[in-house]
């Protein structure tokens, strides 16, 4: 094969390598989903996998969750600022979750493995898994009234937990000593490690058969392809400056909506997303990192302009994201962020859609349940004496589209986590699901209707169990587009009474 440097491989070889790289990323998710032990991973699939180049440019990803996938590249880039390449060794697996290191929130723990060939780091395999508990003030590590980052759990700066020699047990023990449900977490860590190892082996084969120079040239070309396609797609959107805003209900501490605002400038084949008019950083945990802002922009533009473009760092090149330090989407690192990952990120997407309603309304779906609708239960199962944490997301109906009604209960946009079946919940947690049904007519009315949302009734069977909720779109309902009516807001009821506008526990309102 061609291993001369600086020679562009033929388009057929590039396509063969592109296929191989995507297969490797997909295989990582396959490995972790099959071997993980926490239901959040094995049942709900709250995980993602990706490959980046040696500088952290996204090469290929699995069919996972956009909120995760959008920060894989920045995680590696920021990781490399803390851990210089010279310190990396073949066989390393580094774990980290610090939001300020290119990340999103503490429960999403990333395993990063450098892949070596011909004596140098050629790529990184990254496997992100949402741990059902990362320690902190409340079981499940969601603290709706948290006021600082340390209440949210264990903060893992880049930590080499595995080397070619095996497991670093002391480091593993520090992690396991600071999270609830240590057996389950240990299983998840091993599954993440196994996923990165399979990617390492496959990449080694690829580098061996084509030579590193050819593979790197192919990767550069794959990035260029996506960039060209994204630029062409942006060119089809009329030039101009478009403003959109949407609001979060409240931050769990202060009782007022928080504005997320974006100015989208389309100019030729490039687009700028300026979030500087967004409100200041929140006291409560709805802050989002600038990396999450980047993920929201990446998702929104791919969805609007290029659903079929191979997602990689090339797509991001024509996109510029501006955030204001001190704002909700670029907060001081001491602020809590746990909900920003899936609530504020969706609101940024909503704001972008509202901005572009002026020019591409036919491409958009009306606002769906852009909240994770989170309920977390933690406690000891009296049947086994073991600690359990259930983390469950609840989808609402899909927003209506120009050509059809929205469908029932679908996870929109940045999220794509499955529900946990009632039978699995009842088998593994001291909880009974008494009813799960559609909320008929809850979608917004219009020429086409929004899809119906759902209701699910939980009964706690343990003498004591904690519950946390983080549900948005309780005050500000899902929006209609082009004159359609808004959908019904979300509601959480606690023994028949309204809980605090989607947050429990929270300060009385």
């Amino acid at each position, binding site marked *: 094969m061609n291993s001369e440097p600086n020679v562009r491989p033929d388009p057929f070889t590039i396509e*063969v390598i592109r296929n191989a790289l995507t*297969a490797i990323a997909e295989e990582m998710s396959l490995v972790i989903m099959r*071997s993980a032990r926490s239901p959040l991973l094995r049942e709900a699939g709250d995980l993602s996998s990706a490959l980046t180049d040696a500088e952290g440019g996204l090469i290929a990803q699995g069919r996972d969750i956009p909120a995760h996938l959008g920060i894989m590249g920045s995680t590696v880039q920021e990781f490399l600022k803390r851990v210089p390449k010279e310190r990396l060794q073949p066989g390393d697996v580094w774990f980290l979750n610090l939001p300020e290191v290119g990340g999103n929130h503490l429960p999403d723990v990333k395993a990063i493995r450098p892949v070596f060939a011909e004596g140098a780091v050629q790529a990184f395999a990254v496997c992100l898994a949402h741990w059902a508990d990362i320690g902190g003030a409340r079981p499940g590590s969601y603290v709706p009234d948290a006021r600082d980052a340390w209440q949210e759990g264990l903060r893992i700066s880049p930590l080499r937990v595995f080397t070619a020699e095996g497991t670093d047990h002391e480091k593993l023990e520090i992690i396991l000593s600071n999270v609830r449900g240590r057996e389950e977490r240990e299983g998840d860590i091993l599954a993440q490690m196994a996923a990165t190892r399979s990617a390492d082996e496959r990449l080694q084969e690829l580098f061996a058969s084509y030579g590193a120079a050819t593979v790197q040239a192919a990767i550069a070309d794959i990035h260029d392809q996506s960039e060209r396609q994204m630029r062409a797609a942006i060119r089809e959107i009329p030039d101009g400056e478009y403003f959109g805003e949407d609001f979060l209900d409240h931050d769990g501490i202060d009782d007022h909506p928080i504005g997320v605002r974006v100015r989208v400038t389309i100019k030729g084949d490039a687009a700028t997303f300026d979030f500087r008019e967004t409100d200041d950083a929140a006291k409560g945990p709805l802050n989002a990192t600038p990396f999450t802002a980047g993920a929201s922009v990446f998702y929104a533009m791919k969805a609007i302009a290029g659903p079929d473009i191979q997602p990689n760092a090339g797509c991001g090149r024509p996109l510029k994201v501006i955030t204001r330090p001190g704002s909700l989407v670029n907060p001081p690192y001491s602020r809590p962020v746990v909900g920003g990952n899936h609530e504020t990120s969706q609101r940024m997407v909503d704001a972008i859609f509202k901005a572009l309603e002026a020019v591409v309304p036919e491409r958009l779906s009306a606002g769906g349940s852009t909240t994770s609708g989170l309920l977390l239960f933690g406690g000891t199962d009296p049947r086994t004496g073991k600690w359990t944490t259930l983390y469950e997301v609840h989808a609402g109906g899909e927003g209506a589209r120009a050509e059809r009604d929205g469908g*029932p209960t679908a996870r929109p946009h940045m999220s*794509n986590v499955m529900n946990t*079946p009632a039978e699995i919940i009842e088998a*593994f947690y001291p909880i009974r699901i008494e009813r799960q049904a559609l909320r008929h007519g809850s979608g917004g009315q219009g020429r086409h209707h929004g899809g119906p949302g759902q209701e699910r009734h939980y009964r706690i069977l343990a003498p004591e169990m904690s519950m946390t909720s983080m549900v948005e779109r309780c005050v500000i309902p899902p929006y209609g587009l082009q004159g359609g009516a808004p959908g019904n807001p979300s509601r959480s009821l606690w023994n028949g009474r309204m809980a605090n506008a989607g947050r429990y526990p929270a300060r009385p309102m």
Partner: protein
Amino acid sequence: MGKVLSQTDPVAGIIAACGSVGLELSDVSDIMHGTTMATNAIVEGRLAPIALIATEGFAEVLDIGRQNRRELYKMAVTPRPDPLVPRNRRLEARQRTDAQGAEITALTGAEIARLAREVKALGVESVAVSLIHSYLNGDHETRIGRGLEGVVPFVALSHQLNPEPREYERTNSTAMNAALMPLVARYLKRLVDRLGSQTGLHMFHSAGGMASADSISSRPLALALSGPAAGVAAAASVARRLNLDRVISFDMGGTTTDVSVIVDGKVQIDSNQRMAGYPIRQMMVAVETIGAGGGSIARRDGTAVRVGPDSAGANPGPACYGLGGTQPTVADANIILGYIESGRELGGTVRLDIKKAEAAFAPLAKAFGTSIHDAALGVRRVANANMARALRRVTVEHGVDARACTLLAFGGAGPMHAVSLAREFGIQNVVVPRFSSAFSAFGCMTAEMSYAEQRPLHLQSGVWSANDLSETAARMAERLTDPLLKSGCARDRLRVEVAGLLRYTGQSDAVEVPLAAPYDLAAVDTAFKAIHQRLYGFATDEAWEVDTLRVTVSAPPKQDVSALATDAAGTATEPVAIRKCWFEGGSELDTPYFDRDQLPVDWKIAGPAIIEDAWSTIIVDPGATAWVDAHAHLHIAVEAGRK
């Protein structure tokens, strides 16, 4: 071998097939019956209207599903298919069982009577009953089923069909089964009545074995993948005969390619698949189907090239068919490269035309500044890369190192791509079996008569009982043995295999571990951990459980394959033609063509060579060596590594 065209009435087809080889139905001792009846009904949505009875509060599980979407970055998400049962035909039963199988809300006789009345009013023929936690305690479903006797002819109970947790998947599977019952059960009744009691009828099911007409009548869902399963079973029988312990079956057709793994002569089972967008949980061969085949279209996408997923299909077909296709396809690449003779007739209606293929490829070659031959070679490589992804997925799923596998190629296009695909993948052996393109029928005939069943066991390593396991396995084996004895198999020739699906407590997917008496805990523990280590790269000392018990009883095939094969071995060793072909590396080589039916046993040739039979074309690339074995299977040794 006799073959008749499909008849509108399959019963008439069977009688005609017997007639074509001079047999009366009464002369036939056993019929191995594969069918696409259920598959087609599912894919085309021709399903009987049914009612569903669910636990109170759970009738809308079918709408809610698992709430995820398949397309990540597409706002115009493809809507999920409509639920199998419309809302007005779903009833809720007042009853409840908990996660330990204990009744917490009783099911009263009055409630059963009410449900029966309402079902009657709906006017359906078939009812699915799927209650929460019925996989632990099926009593309520059984009682509702009894209550429906005389009300509707067909009832499917979820705890019998799919005794596993996850209400959405189980309810869907049960509903699908109920919706197939009227069609399949009536057909089988008609067939059995016609056959009488002298002929054994063995239905070829999706897991690659047989089942009695009786059991299929109540579980027609077991036929969902009957067709592909026959191909894989045939591959397994060839694997056993040739003593190949790791085989990838590679069935490449015009628009799709099926890939499957065979380990130690056994097909691999995946009980969690989807058809037509619906989850189907049944024992089915683990087949990875990808939308790529000989008809896949190559197109330029900016500076990049893509092959598929669009296909020229059968109409208009590849450009070389001359039926109006103008886009370059994989088949066109093969004719341009000289692998298929221009002018050859296909099925009497199509005459292959290389000029049309070249015209279709010209714009692609021009855009990339390559010759037409290099473009054709490139398209083949990209098509092979698509295949390689499917190969990768099936081998990863089953923890098998693909490089240690033999690639068993069949289907119309499989033998044309097998050698280059093998080389790309680091596979060193390819086998193109006899009858490679009529392989499914061959599979039904030569497969072992085998009956299999799986039941939940939930046996924890901490409270191990070899006795329980042994008794359950023996009971299952006895049930499975019955139809084999009835069809005249000798009991002492039957082989009973027991396997457990084991997982760490709390883990989702289980791994299959062969089990044998005396079911010693330490031995099972060692075997499980070794397999877990192989599949996932780690094993711990945590508690595990035998989630499900799988028992297979098989009898050796009545059909002697070697007899079928040797009479076809010929004596001609000279090529029928020499033509120019192009291979990787761009070299144009004089390539001998051989007629496969004329080749003698032990004949051997080094590539390049093309070997043709009535059904397919086998490409032996330069550097590869082909030889014919005593059963007329063609073996090809591929040189190690990439070129």
